[in-house]
């Protein structure tokens, strides 16, 4: 276990050590102590390592993550896991605005609540929120899955493309071109897997969710391009 005291050694030293890990490495387990809400902790990692941040983080923690598993033992500030490419980010507490924004792949798990704009413009990431999400979540979301065990705020899925949204609780309002859709067996199977990987399988059953998606009236959806999403 590599232990890194952010208060002592500073952010640049941490991130340059993490960026130096390329491909396979022997240093697979990292711990960051004294994060104290600092910005950009473990942003830009591209290695199959396991990083645990012991405390709350500021802006853009785990941004652009590739391959790494990053656990935050506290709450996360704005833009956590923004533009994640692959790997897993697990937050024990709450997440601030635009968690998982523009994410292209990987799995983001938020065990508390997420505030506004969760999954905005998501492009392939999977997001599992154990609590509730704020307004304008999944705005212009293009692909990937957003799973919410609690409630969703105003204007869910506004101007949605082909991302799938699953909400167990209430939805305060749906955004433009976002509609409820039927849950088919393939969606139950998808949810079963996401709940399991999102460490939420003991908390909710797939049958309890409703599915929301694009009415495909706002953008020029062409069925011939469906496989691109």
């Amino acid at each position: 276990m590599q232990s890194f005291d952010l208060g002592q050694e500073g952010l640049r030293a941490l991130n340059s050590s993490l960026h130096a890990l390329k491909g396979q490495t022997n240093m697979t387990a990292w711990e960051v102590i004294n994060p104290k809400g600092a910005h950009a902790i473990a942003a830009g990692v591209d290695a199959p390592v396991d990083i645990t941040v012991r405390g709350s983080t500021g802006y853009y923690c785990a941004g652009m993550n590739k391959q790494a598993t990053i656990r935050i033992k506290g709450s996360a500030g704005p833009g956590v896991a923004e533009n994640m490419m692959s790997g897993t980010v697990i937050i024990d507490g709450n997440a601030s605005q635009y968690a998982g924004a523009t994410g292209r792949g990987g799995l983001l798990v938020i065990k508390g609540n997420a505030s506004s704009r969760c999954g905005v413009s998501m492009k392939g990431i999977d997001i599992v929120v154990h609590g509730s999400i704020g307004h304008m979540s999944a705005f212009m979301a293009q692909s990937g899955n957003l799973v919410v065990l609690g409630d969703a705020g105003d204007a869910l899925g506004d101007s949605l493309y082909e991302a799938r949204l699953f909400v167990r609780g209430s939805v305060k309002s749906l955004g433009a071109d976002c509609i409820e859709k039927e849950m088919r067996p393939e969606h139950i199977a998808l949810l079963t897997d996401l709940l399991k990987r999102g460490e939420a399988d003991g908390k909710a059953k797939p049958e309890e969710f409703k599915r929301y998606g694009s009415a495909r009236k706002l953008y020029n959806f062409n069925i011939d391009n469906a496989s691109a999403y």
Partner: protein
Amino acid sequence: MCGIVGLFLKDPKLEPQLGAMLTDMLITMTDRGPDSAGIAIYGGAKDGLGKLTVQSAHPEKDFKDLDGDMHHAIGQPVTMKIKSSHAVLEVPMDQMEAARSALSHLRPGVKVMSAGDSIEIFKEVGLPKDVAARFDVAKMKGTHGIGHTRLATESAVTTMGAHPFSTGSDQCLVHNGSLSNHNGVRRELKRLGMTFETENDTEVGAAFISHKLQTGETLGNALEATLTDLDGFFTFVVGTKNGFGVVRDPIACKPAVMAETDQYVAFGSEYRALVNLPGIEDARVWEPEPATVYFWER
């Protein structure tokens, strides 16, 4: 950007440390607003006496014999405490308006920062650490206070453009964001008798709330009205003699984090600003909801 910090103490044992705690929080928010900084501190109210905090670009000249000249003008004894470019004049509360009016004749170049029973406002251009050191904020005591670090967008980087803005007795406001209908609201408020020192959007927000309070509205109702009448982006933190309030616009893109323990309620633009507060590990930490008014009064 801009950084906001605020602290409302529930435990009187912390009152001697209010300035030190706010200074630490303010300096942490330097990279959100390095242009200028300011702080409003509430404390040390004395029966019948009020505080008039004034600022001058030429303090040696303007503050020389100002207490004596003011005594002569209002016919009551006046004490003065000079802190760098600011001075706090202690005058009888019932003579506050007379003192303000006398000041405009005695020292036309001097600006009023705040007036009231317990409020003192210190603000200047410069890095938050330099501004805090200049006024020795870390040594100040009080019951509650608000600080601001500014990154100017809407008007010039000047002392008068720094926050907090005070537009009513013992009232102040700080703002992260920008208002888009401030010119129209300013015109309307001028028609209703409010006066303005700057072209700044935040001063309009402050005067809007002060005007509501003048007409007998509660702090809660005044904050509620900002949601319908002010257009733009805002996270506001306001201070009154007894209280401290927070409101965010419905879009809520300007960040805000709050923490509450048995000892205090704290506000920070980011969690970083709160990390050195006592007992923060066990505090209830949350983001204030959009379009929702929060306030605490003692």
